[in-house]
Structure formats: structure tokens, C-alpha cells
């Protein structure tokens, strides 16, 4: 029997890009330190050696110019994969992202096709403070015109990246640093998994049930899925059966998968690493609220997310604001306090 090939998420992403570059000569990569360095977070490792500097282009530190150039190149028929090193840096180039990349298709009445994949690193947990630790996916999902992909593991990352490159629309591909499997940053090991060598796609807009359960639904994404899986394992020992749903993409959002799971369990915990206010967790809570005619809840919706403060530097402060495995466990217990009490009484 063939042994399974385990890849890190970084390896899976760069493999997907390499396979698409081989398949389609219009695909090229550009960004800061994506060439000989292979991307600060390894998403473009090995590409320069395989494809050369004409197709793997290190850029000046000029995000407005090179992200705008990606839009221009895509309008002219190419398929750029362009990297914004940290999502936190969007402030220096947001005009090109949301006023041009995201809107030109619509403003042209659908005539302008912009197959751009914008990759970017997200997330905290390694004490990099307020300007290098955010998730911010809700900001991009909020604004129409960009698909938003947020994988939690290597297998999904490869299939989603392949689908993203083949998509004729702008796709923001956000990878969490703490699941890339970097040699210099601790990561949650569930993110490295078996990845087939051949190319495959995972359609954008399909959430995945990572673990089935009957007591509550934990809706999550990105690194938080791995935390939710660890929490679910602990909860299992307390006879709490959590269903873990990985959204995988925010745009399109698989609303049906969320509703289906919550209809089954009757309890919803949203575990999110973005800010609490006006974001993803509120959106999903609203989805449930709008469907209360077909969803019957046994407990109020509960949200775990970063309270509305910038990400602090000091370890205890950062760990306090970013939801941890124990926070997920405790939140689940709180949701199931009735069931736990009944079990204790019996």
C-alpha cells in the first residue's frame, strides 16, 4: 500500500501554484520576497528554481504599484498570483484592492475579467503585536467583489488554491501563519495532513464537517478549526459531542451547511480569531436569527472572538484576547450546562 504523503500547508500551497504554473503559462507570481526567499511564510517555496525570475518576480516594497499591476496584468489576459506579505499591510494599498480589483468587473457590467489570486498571511499567537497579528478577513468579505478563502489544513489549501487560480474572479487567499508548518514558528499539527500529488480542486463555497456531533455546532475557520478539533476531543471525554464545521471560504459562504448543522444540534458556538464587533461571528449569528422559523435553538448563540482591542504584544495579554482551546471547551460546557447538570444528577 502506498504511504500517505504528509505536507505542511506552506508546501501544499506552493505545490498547487507550481502545478498551475506548469499547466498554464499565463500564471505568474509576484510579491515581496517571494523569489529566492520563497515567501516569508513559505507559500512560494521552490518556485523560483522551477520557473525562473520572469515568472516568479520579487517586487519593490510598493504594494499599491504591484497589486495594481496585478489588476492590470489580469485585465490583459494573465493570471497573477500576488502576495501581500501580511494582511495588516492592506492599509498601504487598499485603494487598488477594493476600488479597482474588487469593483472593475462590476463597473464594466461584467465585461472585465480579473483572475487575480491575492495571497496574504493572517493571524497571531506568536507575539508579533498589533500590526502583524490580525485576521481581518471580515473586512474583505464585507466588501463585494472578492472571493475570500481561509483554509485550515494542507489538503484543503492545495485544492482551494488550485480552484482559486482557475477562478476567473479575484480571490483573496488568506493563510494563517500558525498552521503553515514553518520551521521557525510553533504550529498546530492537525494542519499538516495527507495531500495527493496530482492536482485537484475544492470548489469555493463548500464548508466541510471536520467532525460530526450531536450536542453543538462549532463553526470555525483557519487556525481556529485546529483549536476547535482539539477542544472537541477534550469535550468527547465529557460526553459532549461537538460537530466542527470548517467554513473554508467566507465568500462564497456556505450558509446551508451552517443551517443544516445547527438544525441538527440546536446549539451554535462560533470560534473566530477576527475582531468580535461587526464581523464574521455577527454575520453567522444573524444568519441563524433570520432562520429561526426553521432552526430551533436549545441555547442562545455564543461567540468567541477577539474583543475589540488591538492585538497586544505581551504573551498573557495576547493569549487572553485570542480564543484558546480551553476557551472553546468552556464555552461549549456553558452551552451545554443543562445537559451536564442532568448527567451529574443521574
Amino acid at each position, binding site marked *: 500500500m502506498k504511504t500517505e504523503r504528509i505536507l505542511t500547508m506552506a508546501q501544499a500551497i506552493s505545490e498547487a501554484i507550481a502545478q498551475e504554473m506548469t499547466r498554464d503559462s499565463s500564471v*505568474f507570481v509576484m510579491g515581496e520576497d517571494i523569489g529566492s526567499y520563497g515567501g516569508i511564510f513559505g507559500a512560494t517555496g521552490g518556485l523560483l528554481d522551477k520557473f525562473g525570475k*520572469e515568472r516568479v*518576480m520579487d*517586487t*519593490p516594497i*510598493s504594494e*499599491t*504599484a*504591484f*497589486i*495594481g*499591476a*496585478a*489588476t*492590470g*496584468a*489580469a*485585465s*490583459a*489576459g*494573465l493570471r*497573477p498570483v500576488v502576495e501581500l506579505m501580511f494582511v495588516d499591510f492592506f492599509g*498601504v494599498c487598499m*485603494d*487598488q484592492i477594493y*476600488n*479597482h480589483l474588487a469593483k*472593475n*468587473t*462590476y*463597473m*464594466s*457590467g*461584467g*465585461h*472585465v*475579467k480579473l483572475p487575480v489570486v491575492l495571497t496574504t498571511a493572517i493571524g497571531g499567537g506568536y507575539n508579533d503585536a498589533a500590526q502583524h497579528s490580525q485576521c481581518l478577513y471580515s473586512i474583505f468579505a464585507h466588501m*463585494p*467583489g472578492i*472571493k475570500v478563502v481561509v483554509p485550515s489544513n494542507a489538503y484543503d489549501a492545495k485544492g482551494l488554491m488550485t480552484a482559486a487560480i482557475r477562478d*476567473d*474572479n479575484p480571490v483573496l487567499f488568506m493563510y494563517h501563519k500558525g498552521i503553515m508548518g514553518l520551521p521557525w514558528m510553533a504550529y498546530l499539527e492537525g494542519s499538516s495532513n495527507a495531500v495527493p500529488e496530482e492536482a485537484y480542486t475544492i470548489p469555493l*463555497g463548500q464548508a466541510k464537517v471536520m467532525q460530526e456531533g450531536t450536542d453543538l455546532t462549532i463553526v470555525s475557520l483557519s487556525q481556529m478549526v485546529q483549536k476547535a478539533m482539539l477542544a472537541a476531543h477534550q469535550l468527547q471525554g465529557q460526553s459532549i459531542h461537538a460537530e466542527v464545521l470548517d467554513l473554508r471560504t467566507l*465568500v*462564497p459562504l456556505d450558509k446551508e451547511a451552517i443551517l443544516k448543522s445547527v438544525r441538527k444540534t440546536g446549539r451554535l458556538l462560533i470560534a473566530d480569531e477576527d475582531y468580535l464587533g461587526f464581523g464574521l461571528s455577527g454575520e453567522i449569528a444573524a444568519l441563524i436569527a433570520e432562520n429561526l422559523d426553521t432552526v430551533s435553538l436549545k441555547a442562545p448563540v455564543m461567540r468567541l472572538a477577539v474583543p475589540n482591542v488591538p492585538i497586544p504584544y505581551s504573551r498573557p495579554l495576547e493569549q487572553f484576547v485570542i480564543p484558546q482551546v480551553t476557551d472553546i471547551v468552556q464555552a461549549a460546557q456553558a452551552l451545554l450546562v443543562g445537559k451536564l447538570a442532568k448527567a451529574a444528577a443521574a
Partner: protein
Amino acid sequence: MQIGKEKLMWMYEKMVEIRYYEETMAAVYMEGKLPPSIQKGLAFDIGGGPVPGEMHLAAGQEPVAVGVCAHLSDDDTVVGTHRPHHFAIAKGVPLNAMTAEMFGKVTGLGKGKGGHMHLFDNAHKFSCSGIVGASMPIACGTALAAKKMGKNWVSIAFFGEGAANQGSFHESLNLAAVWKLPVVFVCEDNQWAISVPKSKATSVQWVTDRAAGYGIPGIRVADNDAVAVFEAMAPAIARARHGEGPTLIEVRTDRYFGHFQGDPETYRPKDEVAQLRQRDPIGLLSKLLKERRFMSAEEEAAVVQKAQHRVTQAFAFARSSAYPDAQDALADVFVQDHAFTRALV
């Protein structure tokens, strides 16, 4: 570069067409915006009439558009500004679809979703943006694509002198220089960044003084003259087509109307426009054509008549076209994906 009769006549015809287009638009734009049909106390209602929203007209700036576009073919790309009509017309964007877009009609370039600052025409490789300084990064990208495809196509980024103080200007000139991109950055210096004069906002007298900072040539055109623009562009186009990299061109041009229609222009000396019109570039080119015996008075009348007919016909087309169905607002967020777009709402 010696400019021949054919190019001169083309530039003249296009300038006449642009001028008539802008003057027609200035009149049509005011329909439905003035009292008494609107709220008491308003001088003018920007959202009223058949062409609502902001309107930035380019009368007086025709030499920049025609002097540049006379060098271009359909394979070359133009990225324009929030004041885009003269560029679009000179690049060959169809007048009917362009005008219908400004009327918000379904027959418009963008099916009524873009409006006058957001005109997209793939067939003529034309686009523009309402954001100051945004043309330059995108033109770098179309130039990069041409280079990667091994074509000698050129990209033009038009921008105003106010945009030379945007970060996108500096980033794009550096990027284009480092990568030797076939792009020409063309600055329209009409002296006014809305109400702020160049002298109060820009650290150098000429934007082209900054070209040296990026190791690229900077060429100044001191007169609002189509022939001068054409001649200044020639080496820049040749340089781009031969893979030698970008050039920065600056043209001192004149804006006859306000920043937008309805602009009270309190910042501007009262007689400035009247003085500018004394050296009108269309009259200048007409004189040259007659001196060289390229155009008779009868031929000139025919040119004007034909241009007026094309413009009048385009406005009639726009007026008689249908509005889109309101539900169409939900389509086209993504291409080839209408079902998904609708499901989002």
C-alpha cells in the same frame, strides 16, 4: 518626427469631436437639475436629470488626448482618469455605448453600472478610474502583460498634476523603471487640483523634474498644442516599444470648465478661462492645417458637421435606450457567475 497630413487631420477631427461632445454634455447635464422642479433653496440638484452624478469635462485638454493617441493602435492600452472623455474618444471607444453609460442605460459600456468616471472597453483596451493616481499601477500591469507576452504594445497612464503627489505615482514610476516596462506616464498639468493651484501643492515647478529620481527621461510640453504633444510623445513611444522602459511626459494644458459641472470656481480668477480660450488649441491646429493647405474652409466645415452629427447621434442613442432592470443591480459582481452573485443577497 515629421507629422503628416493624415495624422494632423485625424487629430483635428478628434479634437473637434471631443470639444463638441463636452459642450453637448455640459448642456445636457444641466437638464432636470435646475429650479423650479427641485427642492426650495437648492441652486442645483446633482442627482437630477438624465445624466446624474458628478461630471468632469475635458474641454481645453484635447491636445493631450489626441497627441498621445495618434501614436496608438487598438493593441495599445490607455488608462484614463476621472476626467476621461477626451481620452476615450481619442482611443476609439464607441460614442454610443460610452454616452449610454453616462445616461445609466443598459446599452452602456458597463450596462449602467459604471457611469462617466468608470468606462471600460476591452475591444479598445480602454479603462479609467475615479481615484486620483490610480491609473499608474494598472498601466504598469498592462505593460507588464505585454512584455510577458512578447508584444511591443505600449500602455499609457494618464493622470493630472495633482496625482503626482500621490504615492501611486512614485511607486509606479520606480516599478516601471526597475522592470523596464513599456509604459508612458502622461501628466496633464491643468494647473488646478480641484481648487488648489500646482504652485501650492507641488514641490517642483515641473512634475518631470521628478523623472530623474527614477532614472527615466522626463519630457515637458510647455504649450497646449496637439502637434507639440505628438512630437514629444514620439521618442517615449519608441523607447517603450523597443523595450527600453518608461518615460514621464508632462503637458501644460487648460481646463475650460470647473473641476466638476456646478463648481462655482470661486478659487479661480474671473477672466482666466476667457484668456485661455484666446489661444484655443483647436483654432491653433485649424490655422496650421490651412497654412499647410491640408484643409480648406469647406473641408473644415465638413469636419465640424460630421463630428457634430456623430455626437448628436450618440446622445440620441443614449436617450432612446432603455434603463436596466432594477434587479440587474445584483448581477456582475463576479464574471460567469450570476447564480452565485444572486445567492449572496
